[in-house]
């Protein structure tokens, strides 16, 4: 399995952000909450929710698409959830999070699905219409990204406007409350454009032997 260099760099960047957030959180410099909301945070429930989302996404992807699609969707969900959590933890030092943080991290799955599913479907459709001699799987992934660019722009624009509508309607605590959504959108945009399609391309499906 050989993954595109850009995708590998994006994954390394995400991993570094996640590690930095984890280290700072362990040192007590992350995951700051407003109004004592952190006291009721259940880490177990947060991780259980992420695990549930990952397992369901893998099974859903496998049933609806194929193993490559399932693994790509699983990777997108895990990447986006962890990066959203890490970015929220880092930025919480500036704004402070709210008690709704775990729910909004889970809610940011909406961005992951809206941005990733069309690319995976498009890649699958393009892959079926051309032979591997004409186009490599990486080229197919690039083509899928190009074909879904307009839809991606529309989705990201309205998502950003929704988050801005929340963020600038109140004081800084309201901005902190919707921070997980902002982080989730950034993570979903990164993974759907730079990581997931190339991961899908790297997972070569097993060729069926002729009977």
């Amino acid at each position, binding site marked *: 399995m050989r993954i595109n260099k850009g995708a590998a760099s994006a994954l390394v960047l995400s991993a570094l952000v996640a590690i930095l957030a984890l280290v700072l959180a362990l040192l007590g410099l992350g995951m700051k909450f407003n109004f004592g909301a952190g006291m009721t945070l259940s880490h177990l*429930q947060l991780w259980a929710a992420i695990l549930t989302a990952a397992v369901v996404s893998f099974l859903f992807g496998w049933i609806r698409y194929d193993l490559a699609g399932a693994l790509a969707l699983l990777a997108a969900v895990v990447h986006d959830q962890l990066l959203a959590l890490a970015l929220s933890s880092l930025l919480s030092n500036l704004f402070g999070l709210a008690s709704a943080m775990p729910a909004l991290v*889970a809610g940011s799955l909406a961005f992951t699905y809206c941005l990733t599913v069309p690319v995976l479907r498009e890649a699958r459709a393009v892959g079926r219409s051309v032979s591997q001699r004409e186009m490599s799987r990486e080229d197919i992934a690039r083509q899928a990204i190009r074909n879904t660019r307009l839809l991606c722009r529309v989705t990201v624009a309205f998502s950003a406007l929704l988050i801005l509508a929340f963020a600038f309607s109140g004081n800084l605590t309201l901005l902190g409350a919707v921070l997980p959504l902002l982080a989730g959108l950034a993570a979903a945009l990164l993974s759907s454009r730079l990581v997931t399609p190339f991961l899908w391309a790297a997972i070569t499906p097993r060729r069926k032997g002729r009977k």
Partner: protein
Amino acid sequence: MAKQPEVKKKRSVNRKAVSAAVLVVALALTVVFIILGVTGRNMDAQGLYRLLPWLPVPGGSAAWQEALVPGAGLGDTVVQTFTPVQSGEAPAQEAPAQDAPAQDASAQEAPTQDALEEAVRVTAKRLNDLGWTDTAVEVSPEGNLVVTLPKGADTGFLGSLLGSRGEFTFADPQGEVFLNGSHVTSAGFGYADQSGTNFALSIQFDAEGKRVFAEKSTELLGQSIMLLRDGVTLSNPSISTPLTDGAVSIPGFTLETARENAILLRSGALPFEVTLQGAGEPGAALHGERAQRSLIIALTVLFALAAVCLIVCFRLAGLAAAWMLLAQLALSYFFSALIGAGFTVLTLSAIWLSWLVSVFAMANLLLGMREDVLHGRSVRQALKESYAGRGHASLDVYVGLAIIAVLLIIVDGGVIKLFSEIFAICLLLGLAVTHLALRLVTYEAINLFGGKSELYAAKRTLKKEG
């Protein structure tokens, strides 16, 4: 002369008239639903039964706040202050717990920082357990517990619940305590019998609690075990069989007392006694005094912007999409009010994220339709193809997210569950609106207004791409 056979004339249905009727009925239903959402309606002449308005509007009448009660973040608040009881003013207990936390005795003197943090945790957990997630619990510089509650909450009940220390103990008939609430891992309540008024408190112990309770219930067979809260006997059930499985069900409670005790058992005991100072001071919303009004206006502008974009890009089909997005919002707020969700960031995020999924789904479908129209396909065929092709992507998004939301309702018991309940309902509404209602309305609009491509794609786009 032979009669000529009667020729049966085929009745031709005026398709345009049918389409016009369908669209007019659908529009009338939407308008009535939205007007009711803004104004509400008396359901009888005396006004005893009333359909509350459920659509949030800025300023003016605030009747919608009865249906969607604002949380402390976005609505007016009541600030309650709980002062730690200094010196040994705590009510006398029948007997000290054998393994009570060692800090208890000293905590009555002056609460330590750890004890204050534990008190914040316990108080916040009690509020969360009651569904009040949008609140604030903080320690003031004077060392008091300051709790900010929504104005619409039952502050009297909450004040007494939060002010209760909630220390549970089990004692034998002589009053000797043999177990306390720190060994309880979970607590709940349910019907004790068929009467419907007698409720039982169900308690699950940890390994140590299970062992102690099994020993004592065997030893006290035929006698009784007392359950005490803060030294007051709550129940005194007799023991007919040894209870060795680490769980006990204690009957003799009303619904309110069973619920209250279950919440206190789950949260654990406050590390020190507190007293409520006064009835509470009125306060501003936590996210800013004008946050509610600004947010409603900002979200309305966002909707208007989405509607304008859709209409400009996709003309008639865009108008139908904007109409359906409005219908989805009205329905989402209605069902959120119906299940008792408050007007909080959590509820609004669930409603508007599902709305965003619908914006994505409709944009996806209409982009596909426009592409086909520009390639010379008929509008009707383009609509059909778009639902058959690109429509599956949006279907996957709705179904995948809805499955996750339903599973999170089962798996989680906190804020994720509260969010997922509203999100799942709104996603299903979005699915129905996008894949059934929008398709029907666009199909009827094509019947009524014809299939000219200019009606479904902006002229500039036609020139550019044609």
